[in-house]
């Protein structure tokens, strides 16, 4: 078990290094780096200072090591549009993105787990049908549009909730639901199909033959096994969350990292987008690491397999 965890941590570090390298290659390949890292209208002086800072007169491998060194010290440079250090921007904006993601995850789980499980247990019943309809709608609705429609209904027409921005807990409801809703669809289908497989298994029949009440059969014997494939797909779910959060933050003018990402593309602010990629990438790798360890805890069959 420890060996397994050690191996996964090593893999995660490798992944981080991979992302950093990718960003470095990108920064050197889209144009003159001195220009990429300075504001569009800045003078020759500013570009020369930047060239010195990036070590552009040195060979590439030294530039690369310098870049890694700055990264380790969490120095991601300054935004070219307002001069604020990128690290500071990210640290300010991260909590908003993560809390929104968490709220959305809770929405998604609270909807998809019961719907998926009940849909599988009561096949072809009303609840299965509702789950199917919700899954189809969730899969087919563009999240930016459903977010806007929610704003029209709840903020403009009924004036129940704030239309945009981050404020009290009410401000989390619409964006959280919009983000969770899109992710929910895939999860309902996944939970349902994996639960159906498990319910047909011999060990579930055996659990019934022991005389266990149906609630225990489902909750104890079936659910845990049904969640394993769901965990396997969690990296895809995470990807869906990241995609969604960029869009949803944009719709709700949410002061998170996703908004920074879109703004930095519009303003051609490379240091910021580089920082966003590194943050999302690291977060992605850490979550996957966590899920792998969780998997090993839930499934005793997992052993050290390189």
């Amino acid at each position, binding site marked *: 078990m420890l060996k397994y965890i050690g191996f996964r941590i090593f893999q995660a570090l490798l992944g981080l290094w991979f992302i950093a390298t990718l960003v470095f290659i990108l920064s050197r390949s889209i144009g003159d780096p001195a220009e990429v890292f300075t504001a569009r209208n800045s003078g020759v002086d500013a570009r020369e200072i930047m060239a010195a800072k990036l070590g552009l007169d040195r060979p590439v491998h030294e530039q690369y090591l310098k870049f890694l060194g700055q990264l380790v010290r969490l120095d991601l440079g300054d935004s070219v549009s307002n001069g604020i250090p990128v690290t500071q921007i990210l640290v300010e904006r991260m909590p908003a993105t993560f809390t929104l993601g968490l709220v959305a995850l809770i929405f998604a789980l609270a909807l998809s787990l019961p719907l998926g499980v009940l849909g599988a247990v009561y*096949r*072809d019943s009303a609840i299965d049908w509702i789950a199917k309809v919700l899954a189809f709608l969730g899969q087919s609705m563009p999240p930016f549009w459903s977010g806007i429609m929610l704003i029209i209904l709840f903020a403009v027409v009924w004036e129940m909730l704030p239309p945009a921005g981050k404020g009290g807990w009410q401000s989390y409801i619409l964006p959280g639901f919009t983000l969770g809703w899109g992710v929910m669809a895939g999860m309902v289908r996944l939970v349902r199909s994996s639960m159906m497989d498990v319910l047909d*298994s*011999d*060990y579930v*029949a*055996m*659990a*019934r*033959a*022991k*005389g*266990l*009440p149906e609630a225990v059969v489902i909750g104890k*014997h079936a659910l*845990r*096994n049904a969640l*394993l494939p769901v965990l396997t797909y969690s990296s895809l779910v995470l990807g869906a969350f990241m995609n969604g959060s960029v869009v949803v933050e944009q719709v709700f003018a949410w002061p998170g990292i996703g908004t920074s990402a879109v703004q930095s593309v519009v303003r051609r602010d490379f240091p910021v987008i580089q920082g966003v990629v590194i943050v999302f990438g690291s977060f992605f790798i850490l979550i996957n690491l966590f899920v792998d360890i969780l998997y090993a805890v*839930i*499934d*005793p*069959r997992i052993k050290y397999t390189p």
Partner: protein
Amino acid sequence: MVNRNAEDDILLRVEGLKTYFFQRNAVLKAVDGVSFTVAQGEAVGLVGESGSGKTMTCLSLMRLVPQPGARIVEGEIWFKDENLLDITEHEMRAYRGHRMAIIMQDPQTSLNPVYSIGEQVAEPVRLHLKERGQQAMTRVLDALRAVRIPRPEQRLVQYPHQFSGGMRQRVVAAMGLTTQPELLIADEPTTSLDVTIQAQFLRLIRELQQESGTSVIWVTHDLGIVAQMCDRVNVMYAGRIVESGRVRQIYKEPQHPYTRALLDSVPLMGARRDKLYQIEGQPPDLRSIPQGCPFWPRCPEAMDKCKEQYPPRTSLGGQDFVHCWLTEEGR
């Protein structure tokens, strides 16, 4: 023990059991009017080809037919003096895993991969015997010892994937036997085991049965196992019992052509035959069982009558009977 008559001895009496699968545009008659009895301490064989309704009969006894799809449509299942088809689901649960237990075909899949062996064997103990903690653990250990699992204290905390097929099947047996059930249903428990492991397992179950006096229903397609394990045998074909009798009697004088065919297809030790007999044709499609005796298309001795009407029950003395026009006409 005073004044025991045959009626008191009966543990299980199945009467006219019918379990059908309801498909989109067909009704599959998996069990179509099965009647048999199991006396206390008796081992009864349920024999037939795959698809003859053996497994579905067993699942019906536990009221665990696949849902949705299958339904017990008719019949009575008397366990001592209670009809299992009349009681509530809640009452039925008190039978399952307590008074009747089942061992399924495939030990690879009948244990839950994410719980330890100890936990799974302990479940029926906690549920039905209301024992907890140390007391329950002792009973689990006893059960594992009874099925001859070496080093039970260490294996208790291990998971199914750490056990071999034969050992897993022993765990399943232990799981069923901890609560000392009155009836054990063994649904082809040795089919997926190696021959040597199979022999060990059969011996083990027979010993346990003799010690505890549990009644056993052996489901199998292997008449060799029946000869070894059972007192009585019921031969099933297309969802019905076509012949029933004491093992010795049936082996000596099989009445139904199907029973004869089954016996002829068993390679017997010592008795060398020029070639093994093989039953021609396929078992019938249970969605459209032909009129008359369902075996007639494959029967070497089929008569015109066989195609028209299902043969009545012909008593062969005692509880033995056969459904065949040959025997019926012969008397």
